């Protein structure tokens, strides 16, 4: 049971603090970081903002639309004041020391000299105009369309990209909403497709460690957070500052004489907002990292047991897997709650601070009203003005807090964007066709763990040959074969293809010329035809049928109702393993590349099919290099040359007959083992 624990092991389990805020280890093998420093945060923010360049048009449109709503919004509290003071309470216009700001002049002119009923009529007309254009007072909130969401980050990401927002309503609000949604969607799409691309181009050694569920989580649930960072840190602060400036101006202009304290309280709110929230940002970031890592771990558990459901069922491990999933899911919810706890604490503190300020302001205002320096309607105006200022300040305070979640998410995205990838090997010498062959020069290869798989390999393989790689399990046959299409790169030594060092070649053109048929045949859940087209999009109908025939697939394909258009089930499970193997060989054959590598192609084939396949391989070897890794004698025997590997070294090279001629030969002994009667 102890082993099971190591998976979700928590390093700092010693205290509750460590448990909640600690740097916890979840399921990730490649990216194990759970902390972001403030400097890193700033860098991440910078990169997010740069992404706005791709949506310049939409961004400018959004800016203008939002700007357009700022000034009409300023009118509303003043109109409300007139309604209260001059219509409801029927006091004369301008009866107090409060001065109307200059932008109210047109409306003041309009109502000048009117009785309360007349004033109300004018104001109602203005209200209606504003309702239809910018939707003022249409609803209590602006325009946005969030769907209902779950209590966990992964079920909230869809809304994050697509819910949109506008502070307005009416036609204006809808237009701004559309622009906003399209803007965030475009940024999110750009980022997640970029991440997807980088993940598919990770080097093989990293892929072994990268969990599938984690990749899914990063692409689908972490990447969507980026547009919000970009947007919130550009337009957000701009409009917050604009709001503060305008409201401070109004405060100074209209109430400065009446009540100067109001102005300085507003100024004091700026540092308060930061002081209360900033110290907690580190804790919040870490709980966020943990919550997302826990979400990834849960996705891993689910993905793994769903993909291998046959193994789970046949090993009777259903209960165990359910328990594992339940634990991961519980952990993920728990991490979400820890994060919520920290957020609640910060929000409580911030609202306490703002609450004190609000009370103080209320006392001052009501004092002035009681003294008669202000009218009751001014209370509404000041509420609006202070709402504007407090809104902007708390925006700054909350902004930093809210960003922590997104930064935590986007860090996980950037981690893989920055990870070493095969992209770095694009743009080398381009290879048209491999004419001569492959040459290994003193090649060594060790896995990142330090285990040496291959040592001092010197070998020449020529186009026109059928070569068999033979040797005991774990001898390094597959590692050697992986080196040729550069799925692995040598630790030392050189691999030359037609005389070019493989490291100088453009990796795309190299792989174009080399086909690799893997031992574990993964077929895609598409039609048989599409599976072949996947390998070679240019293949004609004739090519496809040829390849399928050579690999011995036609007999079972003919029995299928839809023939080669039959859609395969999940990972090709509707076919038997032998049939899947034949299909994946056909997929290799259809590529027409200069080098064809087959890793144990015949293991699951019956002898007749095997013989047929070997014959087609021999035919294929006339104008290309065919490399076969095999244990079956019947397959090996037909090779032009046999390379016998043991413990990472090349022991013997030669044809079947030459090698069999050697008494004491390693190959001879190997063959003897198999043909014992």
């Amino acid at each position, binding site marked *: 049971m102890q082993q099971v624990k190591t998976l979700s092991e928590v390093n700092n389990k010693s205290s509750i603090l460590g448990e909640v805020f600690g740097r916890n280890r979840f399921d990730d093998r490649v990216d194990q970081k759970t902390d972001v420093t403030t400097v890193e945060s700033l860098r991440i923010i910078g990169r997010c903002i740069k992404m706005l360049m791709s949506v310049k048009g939409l961004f400018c449109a959004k800016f203008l639309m939002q700007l357009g709503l700022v000034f009409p919004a300023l009118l509303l509290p003043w109109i409300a004041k007139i309604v209260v003071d001059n219509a409801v309470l029927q006091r004369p216009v301008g009866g107090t020391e409060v001065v109307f700001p200059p932008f109210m002049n047109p409306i003041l002119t309009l109502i000048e000299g009117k009785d309360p009923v007349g004033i109300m009529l004018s104001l109602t007309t203005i209200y209606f105009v504003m309702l239809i254009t910018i939707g003022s007072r249409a609803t209590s909130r602006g325009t946005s369309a969030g769907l209902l969401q779950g209590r966990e980050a992964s079920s909230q990401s869809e809304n994050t990209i697509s819910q949109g927002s506008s502070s307005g309503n009416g036609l204006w609000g809808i237009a701004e909403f559309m622009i906003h949604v399209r803007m965030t969607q475009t940024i999110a799409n750009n980022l997640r497709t970029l991440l997807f691309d980088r993940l598919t181009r990770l080097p093989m050694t990293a892929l072994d460690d990268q969990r599938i569920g984690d990749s899914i989580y990063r692409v689908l649930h972490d990447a969507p957070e980026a547009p919000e960072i970009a947007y919130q840190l550009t337009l957000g602060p701009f409009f917050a500052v604009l709001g503060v400036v305008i409201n401070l101006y109004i405060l100074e202009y209209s109430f400065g004489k009446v009540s100067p304290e109001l102005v300085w309280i507003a100024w004091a709110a700026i540092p308060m907002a930061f002081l209360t929230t900033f110290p907690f940002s580190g804790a919040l970031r870490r709980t966020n990292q943990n919550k997302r890592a826990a979400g990834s771990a849960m996705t891993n558990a689910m993905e793994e047991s769903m993909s291998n459901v046959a193994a789970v069922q046949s090993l009777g491990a259903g209960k165990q897997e359910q328990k594992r999933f339940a634990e991961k899911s519980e952990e993920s919810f728990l991490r979400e709650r820890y994060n919520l706890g920290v957020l609640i604490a910060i929000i409580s503190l911030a609202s306490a601070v703002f609450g004190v300020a609000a009370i103080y302001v209320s006392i001052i205002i009501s004092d002035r009203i009681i003294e008669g320096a202000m009218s009751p309607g001014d209370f509404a105006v000041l509420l609006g003005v202070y709402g504007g200022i407090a809104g902007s300040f708390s925006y700054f305070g909350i902004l930093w807090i809210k960003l922590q979640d997104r930064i935590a998410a986007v860090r996980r995205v950037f981690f893989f964007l920055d990870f070493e990838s095969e992209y770095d090997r694009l743009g080398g010498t381009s290879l048209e066709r491999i004419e001569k062959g492959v040459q290994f020069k003193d090649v060594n290869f060790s896995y990142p763990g330090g285990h040496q798989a291959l040592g001092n390999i010197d070998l020449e393989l020529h186009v026109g040959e059928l070569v068999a790689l033979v040797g005991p*399990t774990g001898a390094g046959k597959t590692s050697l074969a992986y080196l040729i299409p550069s799925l692995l790169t040598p630790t030392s030594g050189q691999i030359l293809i037609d005389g070019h060092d493989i490291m100088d070649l453009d990796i795309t053109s190299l792989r174009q010329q080399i086909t690799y048929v893997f031992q574990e045949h993964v077929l895609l859940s598409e039609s048989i035809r599409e599976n072949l087209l996947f390998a070679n999009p240019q293949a004609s109908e004739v090519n496809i049928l040829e390849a399928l025939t050579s690999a011995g697939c036609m007999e079972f394909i003919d029995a299928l109702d839809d023939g080669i258009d039959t859609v395969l089930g999940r990972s090709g499970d509707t076919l038997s393993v032998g049939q899947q193997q034949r299909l994946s060989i056909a997929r290799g054959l259809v590529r027409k590349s200069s080098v064809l590598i087959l890793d144990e192609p015949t293991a699951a084939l019956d002898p007749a099919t095997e013989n047929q396949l070997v014959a087609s391989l021999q035919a294929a070897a006339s104008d290309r290099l065919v490399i076969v890794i095999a244990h079956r004698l019947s397959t090996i025997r037909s090779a032009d040359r046999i390379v016998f590997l043991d413990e990472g070294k090349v022991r013997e090279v030669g044809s079947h007959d030459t090698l069999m001629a050697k008494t004491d030969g390693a190959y001879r002994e190997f063959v003897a083992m198999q043909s014992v009667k």
Partner: protein
Amino acid sequence: MNELGLVSGYLEQGEAEPPQMGFRKMFRLALKTWPYMRPMLKHLLVIGAFGISGGLVGLVTVFVGTDLWTNKVLVGEKLQPFQATVLFVDDEYVTGDPQKLGKELAPSAGQGQSIEAGLTQHQRKTVRNRLIIWGIVGSVLTALIGMFAWYYTTWIWQRINQNLRVAMTERVESLSLKYHDNHRVGDAMFRVFQDSAQIVNLLQAGIISPLLTIYGLIIGLFFVAAFDPLFSLLLVLVGIPIGWLAVVTTPRIRQRSLANRQANSELTSRSQEVFSAMKIVKANHAEGRVWKRFDADSRRALNAAYFLRLDMVLVTLVVSLLGGGMVILTEFMMVNWVIEERETFLGALVATFIGFVVWNYGAFSIARVRVAGALYGVSGLLGIWMRMQDLFIALERAFFLLDMEPDVKDPANPVAFPTPINRVTWESVSFGYNANKRIFNSVNLESNAGSVTAVVGTTGSGKSTLMSMLLRIYDPDEGRVCVNGLDLRDMAIDDIRVNTAIVLQKNVLFADTVANNIKFGTPFADRTAIEDAARVACADDFIAQMAEGYDAELGERGGKLSAGQRQRLSIARAIVRNTPILILDEPTASLDARTEQQVLANLSEWGAGKVIFLITHRLSTIRNADQIAFLENGRIKELGQHDELMARDGGRYRAFVNAEIFGNAAGEDLE
């Protein structure tokens, strides 16, 4: 992605049939969630009681508070008796005639030139200060309770979601492979993570919110009627077109919501498939192509999300303009009534508590908020309704999985798996994945304890399927599979699988340590048992060579091992379970001859008294079996020992063996 797609988007979308989702179905779906909510009932009731009592207290407090702040503090009227009691102030503050109070005294209120003198400045400040103290007490309490309730409700809903999720994965994993053959992993993941999450909104958005809004509306109707019955009439009038709009637009919203969920589910499937087939992608140099497809899927998902929301926003626009118009209109009317000093409809009744006998500033303030609240409530109801459609579409997708009955079911009264076992038999077994396409026709096979049976046949002849019936991965369509003459269908599935180990042809390893992979089906196996099993499978050598030995991590899908090593770990995994029946499906295909011989020798020594089945093509493996069953065209064509079968002239097995030994030429008589 940059285009707003107002026209094009509407042209290309929306031909598909809207999903069927009537009231009755929504109700049924809601009922189905009950078993998952049931365990949390106590907590739901607690939080519900909190909410209701809090809401009532809040409502009263806001009424009294608004009256005090506007009419008393800001304007300077005297207090209602009840208000004076609450604020602990003496009789000087109280009005002599509550029924008359509330008439706006004079345009310059607060100066004391009224019929009844108002509060003095000092008194107003006292009232204000005490009101603020109450406010502080109230908000601190509300904040504390609110914060606690936030965390508490999150916890409750997460638990409910957890219950549903776990039930779903349990169901998915117990569904037969027939289901899995035809469904994508990503789809199940989307259902479990995304669709199931909507259960947390069911009570809130599907039941409580609409009920609360309706309740609020009814209360609101009466309440505004207390100010003036005309408002109630207006509310009803506004409700009619909104209701009509809801009826007309609902099918469209449902359709778009389904499209959105499907598109996102496909995106998940696509990513999952690509990430799990990464090697193939690389080797075929298909990164560019899978990227293009991902990009297209991603755009499609985003477009679906966009158009669903655009529809929602457009519907809301109509409603909000209507509601907003009404808000402005009623405000205009109210102001006029204040000016006329018209009496409120029922104001006199509540005059002891609040001073709203005639239309005044306080009455205006509060009625304005109430009327607007009621109107926004009506239009908000439509928003909730639209989101409910999405919610029920999601729940339907979640319950689709839960409603799926596994093909292979436990019997009502299972018999125990017999021990010790004597024999395993297939009795006239017929089976096909599709009803019209049989893979087997009345297959008969018997195997006794202590024997090794090799199952041989051409690729795709159904060897693996035949064996999987022993585990009840599939049940036969006709005939029966028995152990000691007892039909497997009379036994519990778990019981059978605990007693049967299989080494699958596809070596499935998990991203975990060596030891955990070996004991995958046997969580309680100790280290000695694991090491013994590894020794039988000849895996101990290479495990010992790894730096961390049995604690070494294997990487995603066991990616760091060679195929032969993976195969040996799979064998060890079956051996550690020490079951009376062992099935090995191509156990040695990736092993070299020496290792193969060693593994087989170890196995036969270890397997005394067990029933062992081997599916294989390798002669060296087949030859040593006690009996060989040659499977062809859905029947067992030949059965016997190697020498026996080789002696048959024109025998199918003989031809099969010759093809292996002599290559092409001899194999031809198979054709």
